[in-house]
């Protein structure tokens, strides 16, 4: 089942909704327990449960939805990372954080942004592989789901994933 979106408007609207839902879920979880790790799989599943009743989403399969959610998740993280980074540098930020003492290292923010860059480079060279990475990494799809989504064999998924991992690690150094 190859990803096919035949309605650009629908896609935009869906993306928008998913985007907001994930953003909201993410910040809820974050505030609830500072030590909790954010699992994209859990987030996406939550968003799916919430959004699947609406008629537009009901038309999509779970996998298509996750595909969009993964993209949305990526966007959410990138935007958050950008904002966070500019806040730390005092770059025109409106808000002052309560917690100015930064205990965590900065590198995670840069990593997320660099990953985004690298993925875009990859998408230019090998689009399907970039989608694969996006859905697996941001959307938390497992190997079987990814294979079904991209209409390839599971071994292809594993191979592509392995190569992409290595490449990205290299790019991010």
């Amino acid at each position, binding site marked *: 089942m190859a990803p096919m979106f035949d309605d650009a408007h629908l896609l935009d609207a869906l*993306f928008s909704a998913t985007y*907001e839902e994930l953003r*909201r879920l993410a910040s809820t979880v*974050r505030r609830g327990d500072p030590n909790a790790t954010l699992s*994209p799989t859990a987030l996406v599943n939550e968003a799916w449960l919430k959004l699947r009743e609406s*008629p537009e989403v009901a038309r999509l399969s779970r996998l298509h939805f996750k595909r969009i959610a993964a993209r949305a998740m990526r966007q959410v993280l990138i935007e958050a990372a950008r904002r966070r980074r500019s806040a730390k540098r005092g770059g025109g930020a409106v808000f002052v954080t309560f917690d100015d003492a930064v205990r965590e290292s900065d590198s995670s923010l840069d990593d997320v942004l660099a*990953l985004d860059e690298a993925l875009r480079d990859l998408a230019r060279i090998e689009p399907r592989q970039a989608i694969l990475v996006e859905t697996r990494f941001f959307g938390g799809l497992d190997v079987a789901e990814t294979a079904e989504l991209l209409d390839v064999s599971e071994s292809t998924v594993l191979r592509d994933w392995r*190569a992409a991992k*290595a490449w*990205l690690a290299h790019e991010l150094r």
Partner: protein
Amino acid sequence: MDRVRWERIQSLFHAAADLPPAEQRSFLSGACADDPTLIGETLALLTEDARGESILDRGVAHAAHRVFEPAYTPTSERFGPYRVTRVLGEGGMGVVYLAERDDLGTIAAVKILRDAWLSPARRERFASEQRTLAQLNHPLIARLYDADTLADGTPWFVMEYVEGLRLTDYCAAHRLPIADRLRLFRDVCEAVQHAHRHLVIHRDLKPSNILVTSDGSPKLLDFGIAKHLDPVDELADGAATRTGLRFMTPAYAAPEQIRGERVGTHTDIYALGVILYELLAGRLPFDPTGRAASEIEALILSQEPERPSAAAQREGHLVARTAGGPRPRKSEWADLDVLCLTAMHKDPQRRYATVNMLLRDIDHYLAGEPLEARRDRATYRLGKFVRRNREGVTAGVLALVVLLALAAFYTVRLASARNQAVLEAARAQRIQQFTLGLFDGGDPDAGPADSLHAVTLVDRGLREASTLDAEPAAQADLYLTLGGIYRKFGKFARADSLITLALDRRRALFGVSNPEVAAALVALGSLRVDQAKFEDAERLVREGLRMAQGSLPPDHPDVVKATAALGRVLSERGAYDQAIPVLEQVVRLDESSGAPPVEVAAARSALADAHFYAGHYPASDSLNRLVLATYRAVYGDNHPRVADILVNLGASEFDRGDYRQAEALDRQALAITQAFYGAGHYRTAANLTMLGRALVFENRFDEADSILRRALAIRERVYGPMHPMVASTINELGNIAVQQSRYADAERYFQRMLDIYRATYGDKHYLIGLATSNLATTFLYRKDYARAEQLYRDAIRRFTDAQGPDHVNTGIARIKLGRTLLRERRFAEAATESLAGYEILRKQTNPAVGFLQNARKDLVADYDSLKQPGRAAPFRSELAAEEAKAAAKDK
């Protein structure tokens, strides 16, 4: 790096990946003999692969964990002209700040929804949504002054700063007795009702959102703000509104909110019920203390609450501390139980259908009268099919829920004072209008995307209705309202059978002369207008009106409705002098009975139309402008009703010769209509036709032709080939054909038009004159002057009879006749006609109008030929002056 290279590297990588590290390099050297650069790159990958420390291995959770922001606070942030001064408090949805306005020194509250980040796509709609909220102007609702989003998408609101105690705290602090609490609660309900009338739902009513100020009046906060916590608000135009919120305290959440179903006015009513419970019993129906959110949610969904009377009794000591005054008697408590539990019934369609009905029962209680909510349980059976349709709901369901409750209400009337009955009927009728309006585009949340679902729903309603044979009165009600809905959708055949059925049932039930029968007669008559069967329509409506007047007071809403229907019939069939006084009466009655602004506007609009057709353009325009202002204020700029008025104003400009202005108005209207209803809708066809007309008169024929063909196609499909709507489009196409010298085509068009109008209106209507005149023009252009003259004279006679000797149409026809006579070299007669036509038009239209120019030209030719240069001269100079003006404009 390009694709080819990457693929090569990957295949090398995979080939080498599982080799022992020592062998990898030698393998690669061999494989990459042609391009040694590949070796280094592939080795790099292999190294990373061995390390296994890719970011992808760590997982996004790790990265994300550090990325999301902790709580923040703005420092001297500005929101519009307001400057934040201090924090007022932090609530579940966001932080509230006190802000001051530098220029005026006034204060306001600024609320920032930090959880409600809006995506770029949604930010644009946010602003227009706020307009509706900002228009909520009620003394008991905190005003919204401004709203926008920050750069990162966080919404903020500036609103009236309200100081006071929470509703429950206030009642406790002042030890209010039950009756006073009820009165305070009643005020709250009035405010909510006001909002509902403006199509705003609160969605998050609770005591912390209701502050009571020091003068003892409540103020409702945060209307519509809860909407922005729900990102799944509009997935497509008019899609369902859902609340997928996870509540911090779900204590006030309605079952449908918890289930993530559609919210509506019924949701607010549930919340009101819970608030009332708290005021009566001193505690919440489902006590949240010590309970997890999911537990509370489960209780709300499945557990019946203890009756407030029982709870109050148990918490006796508590209540004694916080409530003073006389305790309700046992029978009174029973009524309070019903009041409260009906409002917060788990099944939305067993609640009070509108806040108005809740208000009425509160009033009944305070007046010591029996409640309506305890009435016959049988009426609730009507709602069964709605329950089954809860999945995949649309606005139509809300409408039907109210309609059915309404139908139930109609069959159960209190035997009370006559005035009371009138008031009830008025309210009930307004509710019905509102819900029918939901299908009309009255509800901005409904709209074209849902109409299909609504029709399906109505079809299902029809099947259900047939199971109501044992309750003929309710069944008749249902048939009548369903028929009305079909009519709105343009499905006239269905509407016809249903309304006729309703009429028959009611006659059988109530006898031959009865207000219910009268209402059905009026409904059938109104449908006949849509079906262009005007004689039938007038007969039915007059009969219905007479019948209603026979047994109801003259200001009764049913009488007003029947009068308005009569006005419409008379207007549609061309009897404008009769229609105008009737419609004026309707406006008067609506104004004096305190009908909501949109109703008054609708009545004015009908009157404006009648004035327009009668040629009273200034009167028509000023009425229409009032209507336009009302519709814009209530519905916003992109509502179909606004489009309708724009078209009307355009028609007025058109008749007076300002075609450019007419085009502009028509285009505005078309954009709205098409966006709202779709490209194949009959309303779009109407707009297209008006636009086409204007383009024709601007001589932009090709554009006009294609526009009008679109309109014709739609209308033939929707109305059938013999409908006046089709005829009016054909009229325009005929005019174009004339201009483009396609006279044979033109003649065919006008002849077809004539046939349709004759069959529909009979011989006396002014449209026959119009068709005849246009037909005559084709002969004029083909130089068949005898035929042209005959037809023009016929047309003039008709116009004079139908619209008066001084009407623009009569004038135009006379000018055309003048031209025909000129061609026949009958100069004296020609001059008479052209002069007459000229005089008529000169008083009413733009002096540059083509017809006037033509008249001037012809008169010059006439008088020259008659050797009367003195009479020719003024026209000659006028002609030259207008031509010079036109030339100057073209430069």
